[in-house]
């Protein structure tokens, strides 16, 4: 066991995946996940999340680049990796005609050091459904069965592909609590999600995937901090943008006017907000619909998607010209 295996449980270097038709789903991504960390791959549908996770799970051979999980290649060195990982695929994968208990028992027979399957069913709240056929489960119950099976062998590394998609609010909270408990017990978790609050609330670090590339990565705070904050308000009757103090002196990066609504973007939220409010106070006017907010992960996410598609448009125009 080398030092790397302790520090970086998952190492991904310039990873690429190309499908049969030539579609390049993963276009050279690099990241690592440390032991005991919860790492989220965030992205819209089609961003390349599942394509990436499948390479980490060792289900397919990369078209380029390198993956190491616990120091091994998960595709060529399956036998060394699989007893130490747990996988929850994006969609089921259970025979419809087996009951929950039969499915769990079958899987338990294929997992090293499996816990009694009744325990994990209990853990995910499926104990009462043990005798029910898989085909009769709701979508959320199937997700929880999948999670239970991923946990059977007390894995060191857990891959969760959209673990809460299809769950109701309560089920989602339960899953989050479970993931936090696992992290506290030392499990390394890599999860994909398109729910921003899930990534923000669960992940120690995250990467935002867009069109097969990593558009931003870091802790949720770091990714968010890279984005400007926002101030918006309605101009009082009879006033124009030009009546405000010079915007650059307030640290405002850009502004836009939409009817009577003004939107400002700034990296110095306190200074810009103070400037606007002091101005309003002195002018004796009320700023209706005032909204001052620091950047959120959602802002960062939408900003990245916007920038990326603007770049794509620019490329498209350049080609057209």
């Amino acid at each position, binding site marked *: 066991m080398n030092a790397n295996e302790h520090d970086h449980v998952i190492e991904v270097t310039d990873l690429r995946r190309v*499908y049969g038709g030539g579609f390049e789903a993963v276009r050279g991504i690099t990241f690592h996940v440390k032991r005991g960390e919860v790492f989220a791959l965030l992205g819209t549908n089609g961003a390349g999340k599942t394509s990436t996770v499948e390479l980490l799970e060792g*289900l397919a051979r990369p078209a380029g680049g390198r993956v190491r999980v616990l120091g091994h290649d998960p595709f060529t060195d*399956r036998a060394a990796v699989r007893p130490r990982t747990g996988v929850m*695929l994006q969609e089921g*994968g259970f025979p419809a005609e087996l009951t929950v208990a*039969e499915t769990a028992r079958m899987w338990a*027979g294929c997992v090293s050091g499996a816990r009694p399957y009744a325990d994990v069913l209990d853990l995910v709240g499926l104990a009462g459904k043990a005798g029910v056929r898989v085909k009769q489960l709701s979508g959320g119950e199937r997700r929880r069965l999948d999670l239970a099976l991923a946990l059977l062998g007390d894995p060191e590394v857990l891959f969760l592909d959209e673990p809460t998609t299809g769950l109701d609010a309560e089920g989602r909270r339960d899953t989050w609590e479970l993931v936090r408990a696992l992290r506290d017990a030392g499990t390394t978790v890599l999860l994909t999600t398109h729910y921003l609050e899930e990534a923000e609330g669960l992940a120690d670090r995250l990467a935002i995937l867009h069109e097969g590339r990593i558009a931003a990565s870091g802790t949720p705070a770091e990714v968010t901090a890279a984005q400007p904050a926002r101030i918006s308000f309605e101009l009082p009757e009879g006033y124009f943008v030009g009546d405000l103090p010079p915007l650059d002196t307030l640290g405002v990066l850009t502004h836009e006017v939409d009817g009577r609504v003004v939107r400002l973007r700034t990296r110095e939220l306190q200074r810009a907000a103070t400037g606007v409010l002091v101005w309003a106070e002195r002018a004796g006017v009320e700023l209706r619909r005032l909204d001052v907010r620091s950047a959120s992960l959602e802002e960062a996410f939408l900003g990245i998607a916007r920038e990326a598609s603007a770049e794509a448009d620019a490329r498209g125009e350049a080609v057209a010209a």
Partner: protein
Amino acid sequence: MSAGTIGRGTTPAGRMAALARAEVTLLGRSKGTLFAAMFVPLALPFSMRSAAQEMDLRGAGLSVGTVVLPAALGVSLLFAVYATLVGVFVARREELVLKRLRTGELRDVEILAGSALPAVATAVVQSAVLAAGCAVLLDVHAPRAAYYVVPGYLLGVVMCAALAAVTASWSRSTESAQVTTMPFILLSLTGSGLVVPLEVMPDRLASVCEVLPLTSVITLLRGGWNGSLTAGDALTALVTALAWTAAAVFAVRRWFRWEPRR
């Protein structure tokens, strides 16, 4: 890792047993598959019996029993092993079960073998019943050269299971599997000595039929049973059966589809 988990690693046999157990349960719940696998091979030999009685078998050195029994074993391989397993592999692939299994500790060959085990066991039990039935009803003696019968049968099982996996790769759904299994079943029934022994075929047709996959298996079963097979013919049949089995296994390793088409 706590001491409690050491030594609780899985073994290939244990993993396949867990998978096979689930497949037995599933086979029991799939009445249509169960019927086709269990009863077709048991019923078909009786319809063949009358046809066999019409043929000029004495001239070819054959008896009704030694035509019907190998044919019945061949039908068992075709329906209980081949056709059943195409359906099993397609269904598990389309349900994403195969993909799910591949995320775990099972090796690819264990997934296929474990899933195939209940169907193979069905065929073996069925063959024992058929052999006993033919012994009682058609006065068939014990095999004269069991050393041809046993390898012939085992090769037949592996070949049919591997060909089922190949066929499954061409079948998009369990419904289309009912069509994609027909060519091999019909070809084998007509050309591999199941319904019409090669000995009573025109020579040119017989020489083509000799190279069909299941023909070598039937040759070994029948020749081994009545002791008529020369060492040279037996060797040719063994090599042919091995070659088909190896080709089928290679095709599975190379082209088997573990996931539905996107």
